[in-house]
């Protein structure tokens, strides 16, 4: 729906309530400064992004986004669907490289190294910036092999014992150890959805990342599994920097310290989570969190 509006013809003939709201929404962005409201920048960031633009072919999906991500925080990204949350998230570990027509400009830094530098090797980058996907995607292999794969290809374990140790620690950290310790040799695909997603988190943890990106990790899960994952995220933030995309505002409120609101490719607001949900600085943020569109 919102995509229609990105063309420049204002739909004055629009009849439905929804469309009226949306055209109003569009006009608001056009009028107001697109500059990000709130406080997108922090001191000593782990990752910093400046003027990031992403294009799919001719179509621009992300417009001039600047934001910092600090150490050991959970940053939630919310926004209506199709606004570019996943696209932006996938820039942070260059998963967008797999899409041919995708082009990224601007500056993205992990500590002080430029992520999109020609000399940047994506293999260690993705080990440092791990990813958990929307749909649980364990390898069709045993639970053990799922976790062991990453450490094996990176050569993190010198011996089999070390590898087994990594597997165990990762599963413990992901809160899955007690449920699977007796069946490590069984296929990971045989677990329940929530367990699979925690397996994927364990798999990401196993290579010792500094940042973990999660793209709507709970959208395919039932409420109980979701609650487990949310608890897990709260625990993981002590050791990792986490960026989580979610369409569930309650979830963002529950797990994150800061929240970023994306709107049609623009980053409109980044604030402390409690501030954003109680006193949003941007009119559109307010419209979105009060459920007037989305």
């Amino acid at each position, binding site marked *: 729906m919102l995509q229609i509006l990105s063309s420049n013809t204002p739909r004055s003939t629009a009849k439905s309530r929804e469309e009226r709201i949306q055209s109003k929404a569009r006009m608001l962005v056009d009028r107001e400064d697109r500059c990000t409201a709130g406080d997108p920048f922090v001191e000593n960031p782990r990752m910093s992004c400046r003027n990031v633009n992403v294009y799919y072919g001719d179509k621009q999906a992300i417009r001039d986004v600047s934001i910092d991500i600090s150490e050991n925080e959970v940053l939630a990204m919310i926004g209506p669907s199709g606004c570019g949350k996943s696209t932006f998230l996938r820039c942070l*570990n260059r*998963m967008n490289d*797999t899409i*041919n027509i995708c082009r990224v400009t601007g500056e993205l830094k992990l500590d002080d190294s430029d992520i999109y530098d020609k000399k940047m090797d*994506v*293999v*260690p*980058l*993705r*080990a440092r910036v*791990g*990813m*958990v*996907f929307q*749909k649980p*995607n*364990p*390898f*069709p292999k045993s639970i053990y092999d799922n976790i062991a*794969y*990453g450490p094996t*290809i*990176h050569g993190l374990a010198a011996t089999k014992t070390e590898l087994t140790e990594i597997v165990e620690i990762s599963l413990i950290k992901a809160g899955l150890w007690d449920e699977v310790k007796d069946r490590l040799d069984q296929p990971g*695909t045989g677990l329940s959805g929530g367990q699979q997603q925690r397996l*994927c988190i364990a*798999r*990401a943890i*196993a*290579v010792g990342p500094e940042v973990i990106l999660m793209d709507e990790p709970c959208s395919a899960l039932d409420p109980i599994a979701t609650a487990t994952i949310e608890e897990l995220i709260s625990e993981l933030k002590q050791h990792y920097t986490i960026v989580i995309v979610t369409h569930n505002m309650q979830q963002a409120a529950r797990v994150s310290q800061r929240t970023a609101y994306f709107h049609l490719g623009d980053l409109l607001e980044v604030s402390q989570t409690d501030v954003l949900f109680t006193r949003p600085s941007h009119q559109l943020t307010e419209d979105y969190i009060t459920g007037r569109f989305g």
Partner: protein
Amino acid sequence: MNNQKPMDIVQAGLAKRYKKEKRFKLIGLSAIIFSLMFLVFLFSSIFLNGYKAFYQAELRIDVFFDPALLDIKDPASANFDALVKKSLRTTFPDVKKRKEKKKLYGLVSTDGSFQLRDMVLADPALVGQNRSVWLLADDDVDMLMKGYIDRNLPQSDRRISDVQIGWIDKLIDAGRVKFRFNIGFFTNGDSREPESAGILGAAMGSFYMLAITLVLSFPIGIGAAIYLEEFAAKNRITDIIEVNINNLAAVPSIVFGLLGLAVFLNFFHLPRSAPLVGGLVLFLMTLPTIIITGRVALQSVPPSIREAALGVGASKMQAVLHHVLPLAMPGMLTGAIIGMARALGESAPLLMIGMVAFIVDIPAGITDPATALPVQIYLWADSPERAFVERTSAAIMVLLTFLVLMNGTAVYLRSKFERRW
């Protein structure tokens, strides 16, 4: 608006809908039955024509391994033909006229002398002894015994004369005729004599050819598929390559034969009639199919698996080799086996490169002259002797057995290695 309730309208239309559905099902079912009937007809006619080729008539002849005829020093080059003739004459002492003698000799296959030679070579002590030996009957005798020759026809209309029938009846009465399993059909090469013609030469030719085809086309085809699907930049050039591969897959096989003739024989001067060249031609023919099925198999691997691998820091190569390829392998193997099955049944391109020659020796390597199973079928189908008719069908059965085995393997592999995700 009419005053009918919507449910009533739905009810009224239901019967018609179900009828339509039923009719559609019936049409589908009858199509299947129709094609099944043809299949049954085809298989049963092949079987009925061919099953008798698996056994063969033999005659028991008393042989005196006459030292006068057999040179002790070099039995291999002795005149065993004369020995067979002499034994036949002693069995039927009242045959005196030259013409009749010739007919008498015609009862036993020309292979009979080789049988005797092999016996003597195996056991030289036989020389000077009497033995009762089962010798292969001539194909005409075999045909008469199997009921393919009508005794009521006038003599001039059949390949076997009245006197010969008389002798055969005598032999039958004396219990000197029997059928035995036709091992020779599976262990001999081709022959001008139907009774000693076998399929092994052609089968070996096919085997060498397919081995070459498989060894070349599987790795090259899979490599090409992986490159095109996973690594090649998606641009005009890859588009053109893709279109051309699809076109190549549709090129008639005889064109590949002509290509083989021009390139492998005339330019590279590889040996004519050799499985090497046949294998190369079939490799060219199967390659596009294997590339296409390989790409389809790769495409059917869910992208989430690639992302999962890349997400933990696997390089593109590792993601493909460790995760995508194993999942695509069953599909690729299926494609390769079906391609091989097609290659096994192919005859047209082989005619072009001289594999249609009459070759008696069983090929011992990829450069020996050879023929292939389908070509052997073609050659036998073209032969005038009645006994070749059943051999043609028998050879078809052998070929079909291989094809069914290969397709069965494909199905088995698919179900065994297919993993769910």
